[in-house]
């Protein structure tokens, strides 16, 4: 089906009758194609009252901007909560049964890694340690929280190049590699800065990027041999065991085999299960995710309502004009098309400024929080999809009213 239907006068009307279709502010020729005709009428109708059009577009823009902001922050938060795990390459994680999220206070024994190896499904294992410690900035002696991350030798497990490089840097005694995205309140984390953890003087000699501001003011990497001393943790204990599965063994099979071999106070999850649990905890159990979802629903409602209101006022104000068009023999394609065209103009007129302002604000937000809130193609497409959906719903609700206009009522 093509939309290339001509606007033909009905049988009774002469062709000449269609031509003097004039509007109050000068004649407008109806273009030949229906799409062109619809857009032409839509533009003319909307631009008839510029101030109102601007107000309506501004309203749609505000709603879409609000939606964009919430959507980006939610998306960035989803990525951020699994960021440390994403820096590692592994298939299966072994955790204590009290594990809820990265900062669980419980540990497992390294023996669990040996037991996992004994199943025969495992290619390699890795011990990851995390603990909240205090670090005191020298010379200010200001103490803040620090997420201390203990590493095993990186072979094959560490994806992030700056963390891989950190391993060699950490060979020098009393050395830390600090998160470049640490909060300013932790103090300067540039190479050469000194901190005290557990009364031991340490110097920063390298940086990596993490930015888990919701856990602690700062984060640092350390080798696991040093971790046990700085965090007062038995060297045989680790926070999380990471496992790489031997090629040819299915993930589910390896997970079940390892779980069967380990005592019941350990949890065994695939990487995707672990990351899903991590996201679920932060975005469903914690209220921020719920709140952002509520705000997004409000933004959609508002955007839709404004388009709907403008369209319905338009239709109400122009009942006579639509009736005239009908009497002239215009088919439903034109009538619906004008409504859809107006909705599209309003939606687009709101979307473009929302994206423009949004890209600036989100960029600033990214700099301030190190959440990856920048605009990407996926979010722009989502926003465009939402706008089209809102415009379509509003059109569907309103154009039925035009349908009911009766040319006879003009007289």
């Amino acid at each position, binding site marked *: 089906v093509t939309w290339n239907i001509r606007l033909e006068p009905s049988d009774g009307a002469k062709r000449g009758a269609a031509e003097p279709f004039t509007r109050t502010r000068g004649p407008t020729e109806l273009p030949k194609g229906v799409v062109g005709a619809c857009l032409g009428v839509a533009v003319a109708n909307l631009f008839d009252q510029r*101030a*109102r059009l601007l*107000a*309506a577009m*501004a*309203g749609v823009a*505000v*709603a879409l*901007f*609000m939606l964009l*902001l*919430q959507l980006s*922050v939610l998306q960035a938060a989803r990525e951020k909560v699994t960021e440390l795990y994403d820096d590692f390459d592994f298939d299966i994680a072994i955790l204590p*049964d*009290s594990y*809820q999220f990265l900062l*669980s*206070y*419980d540990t497992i024994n390294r023996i669990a890694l040996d037991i996992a190896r004994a199943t025969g499904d495992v290619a390699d294992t890795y011990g990851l340690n995390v603990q909240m410690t*205090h670090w005191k900035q020298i010379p200010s002696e200001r*103490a*803040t*929280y620090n997420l201390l991350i203990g590493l095993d030798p990186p072979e094959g497990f560490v994806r992030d190049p700056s963390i891989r490089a950190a391993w060699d840097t950490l060979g020098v005694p009393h050395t830390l590699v600090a998160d470049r995205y640490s*909060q300013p*309140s932790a103090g300067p984390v540039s190479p050469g800065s000194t901190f005290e953890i557990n009364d031991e003087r340490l110097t920063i000699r390298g940086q990596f990027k993490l930015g888990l*501001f*919701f856990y602690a003011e700062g984060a640092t990497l350390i080798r696991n041999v040093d971790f046990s001393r700085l965090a007062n943790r038995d060297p045989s204990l680790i926070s999380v065991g990471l496992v790489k599965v031997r090629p040819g063994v299915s993930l589910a099979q390896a997970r079940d085999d390892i779980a069967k071999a380990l005592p019941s106070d350990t949890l065994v999850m695939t990487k995707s299960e672990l990351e899903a649990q991590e996201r679920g905890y932060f975005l469903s*159990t*914690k*209220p*921020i995710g*719920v*709140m*952002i979802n*509520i*705000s997004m629903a*409000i*933004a959609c*409602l*508002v955007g839709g*309502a*404004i388009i709907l*209101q*403008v369209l319905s*006022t338009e239709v109400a104000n122009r009942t006579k004009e639509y009736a005239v068009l009908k009497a002239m023999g215009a088919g439903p394609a034109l009538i619906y098309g004008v409504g859809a065209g107006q909705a599209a103009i309003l939606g687009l007129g709101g979307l473009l400024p929302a994206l423009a302002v949004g890209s600036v*604000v989100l960029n600033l*937000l990214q700099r*301030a*929080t190190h*959440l990856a809130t920048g605009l990407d193609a996926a979010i722009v497409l989502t926003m465009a999809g939402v706008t089209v959906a809102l415009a379509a719903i509003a059109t569907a609700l309103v154009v039925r009213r035009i349908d009911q206009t009766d040319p006879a009522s003009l007289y």
Partner: protein
Amino acid sequence: MASPLELGARLLLHDKRRLIAMALGVAVGVVIMFVQVGLLQGILDSQSLEAKLVQGDLMVMNRARIDLHHWDAVKPYELAQVAAVPGVASMIPVYKSPVGFEDPDDKRVRRIILYAFPPDAQPLKIGDPKKVAQALRASNAFLFDERSRPIFGVIKPGMSIAIDKGPLNVSGLAHMGPDIVNDGAIFVSEGAWLSRDPGAYPIMGVVRLAPGASLTAVRAAIEARTPGDVAAFTPAEAARRETSSTLREAPIGLLFGVGAIAGLLIGVINGYQVLYTEVSDHLAQYATMKAMGFADAFLHRIILAQAAVLSAAGFAVGLPLAIVVDVLVALFTRLPVEVHVMTAAGIGLAALLASTLAGRLAMRRVDAADPASLY
């Protein structure tokens, strides 16, 4: 002669169905402002809950505890020094620790916050003092915060729950509420906690002043007598400090602030749409009044009066809607999301502002009314 307010009101009341629709348009903006400000306030209130529930004059804490979600404890001898300061009537130690709470159904262990204090002292307002004291004095027992998030399962008095692997009985329910960081709380007596963890240090000391003692003098004496790593705050100061540090650390201010501004703008835009249509429909009447010699200023006052009526109607419709939404949000998030009187006043004012601005924009339509066009 009718006043502009009366005229404006009459014009609006002429079509009551439309008035309701108009009020709804403005109410949308009002509800958005309420919900967004409510969400932000709910987060901030929950984060500073510990300070708001303190029943005392001063909270004595480690200086390194720069917000209420830090774990820096005070040394017991420092609290003993505080207790000896003249003017201090009582000094109640409060302990706080994350512990593992085993769900009786699925046996999963989840992190919960444990508070401990002497049973009779009631440093935190968490329920009927007599019942709380009685429940805390029971042996091997704890009170469960019934406002905790539902992840812990359905907890009822009489159940036995493994807390850090050691069983304790639920002897009663308390009322506190979670925040963004923590999902729930339990309360035990100081004795029960010290018998489990003999080396535990208090997270704070709650000081009550003797009658007639001066807060500033006692506070200065506390800081003079302790060796420099102890600070004393009034509960209100601690709550304010918590609010500012929450706003500094997380981008929630921006997130919900933009939502509130969006609500305000939507109020202006909807108000303008509504008033514009209203003026357009009565253009003939306005033109007639102009022809009769009424000044533009008089006509403007009619429109501003309409704007005021609209904002009042929008607020009246929006407030109950916002309360319903807040109740639902509070139910889902277990955060204290509610309409504060000051917030309501602020949003009422914002609604009036939005409508006035909309009215000023719509006035230009009246200015364009031409008596000659009537004929």
